[in-house]
């Protein structure tokens, strides 16, 4: 059994009648990206710097401390290629269509942003622009440093965001 698992992501958006469905494995998409062919999968290594939750009862809502800005680089995955940026596909979510842009240096995400956002001029647009998306960017960066495979929470926007982000990461041969 090889160490690095390949992740296959499929997405199903209900209700609006829009169905995005990808069964592209990371390995297959690697070859389509210039300079990425030799990049090995970023293995889902255990990151000892990502701490678990504070186990003490009580206290404030302050989130657990972890190695925030500079997550540990998975060992042995250095490549010679430089920084790459990929836009994820445009994904429908409840309030419109968005796509996520990811910039990677070696195997580390250095920047996550919105490549496009069309909310149809709905009144939620201001909220999404100014509140939700910066939080989601932050969440994705933190997910990387915490080495997790998903986030549980009550949200609408995050699903569309994660969907586009995940596809972009797959294109980059990253997980």
């Amino acid at each position, binding site marked *: 059994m090889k160490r690095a698992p390949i992740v296959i992501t499929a997405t199903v958006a*209900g209700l609006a009648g829009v169905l995005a469905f990808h069964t592209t494995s990371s390995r297959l998409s690697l070859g389509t990206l210039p300079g990425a062919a030799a990049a090995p999968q970023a293995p889902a290594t255990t990151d000892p710097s990502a701490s678990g939750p504070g186990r003490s009862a009580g206290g404030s809502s302050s989130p657990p401390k972890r190695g925030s800005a500079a997550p540990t680089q998975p060992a042995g995955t250095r490549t010679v290629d430089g920084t790459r940026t990929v836009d994820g596909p445009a994904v429908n979510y409840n309030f419109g269509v968005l796509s996520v842009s990811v910039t990677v240096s070696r195997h580390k995400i250095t920047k996550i942003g919105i490549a496009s956002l069309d909310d149809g001029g709905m009144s939620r647009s201001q909220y999404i622009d100014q509140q939700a998306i910066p939080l989601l960017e932050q969440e994705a960066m933190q997910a990387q440093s915490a080495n997790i495979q998903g986030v*549980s929470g009550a949200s609408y926007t995050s699903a569309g965001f994660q969907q586009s982000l995940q596809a972009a990461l797959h294109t980059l041969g990253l997980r």
Partner: protein
Amino acid sequence: MGTVVTVDVYTTDGQAGDEVSRQLASARALLQRADAVFSTWNPRSPISRLRRGEITVSQAPAEVGEVLELCATARELSGGWFDPWAMPGGVDPTGYVKGWAAQRALGAFRAGHISGAIVNAAGDIASFGGLGRDKPFSIGICDPFSPGRLAAVVCLSGAIATSGTYERGNHLIDPHSGRPKARAASASVTGPDLGLADALATAIAVAGPSSLALIEALDGYEALVITGDGYLRWTERFPFRAR
């Protein structure tokens, strides 16, 4: 159901394979079917027709009766704090269906070339296996006071659902008054089945930390509540990831 579902399949041999593709297609079909039957947004769906009294449960597709039975069980196990029959506008199993459908879609995947799979229905997650042998999935729980951050990380075996009021506003209905009310900022429940976990998470988000005893009494289910003033409370065996 008005939600987005993502599926992650972790293969052991690096190959997508026809088998996995078929399983993905079958998971998609299960989700589409659930959406067609249970969408309260679609006025022509069986559940909408049932709510308007145009058809009875026995005239509806078999899944409707099955889900309503499961809802009745969840209502009982939650001490009445989860109650689709107390929703404004008539019986509304939406709070159960999302988790139920994701759990059902997960059933499309079989071990073999797969070490694990995750079906994530907008933050409610059904899973089996992990990254590899003895390498379970880690799942973060959103901090309700700072949704870009994580309040905890769990070592997942099975399902996790989180209910709260933070991103969607105060959408939780207190079945005892029929009005919006939540006594916790966020509630997460882990357990073998996502449908029940989702219902229980909704129940304890409404009922507050005192209802943790209900979960403590249930075999296989654990819960974490984040109170309105930021305290964390959890059942004895809640699966925090080790430091």
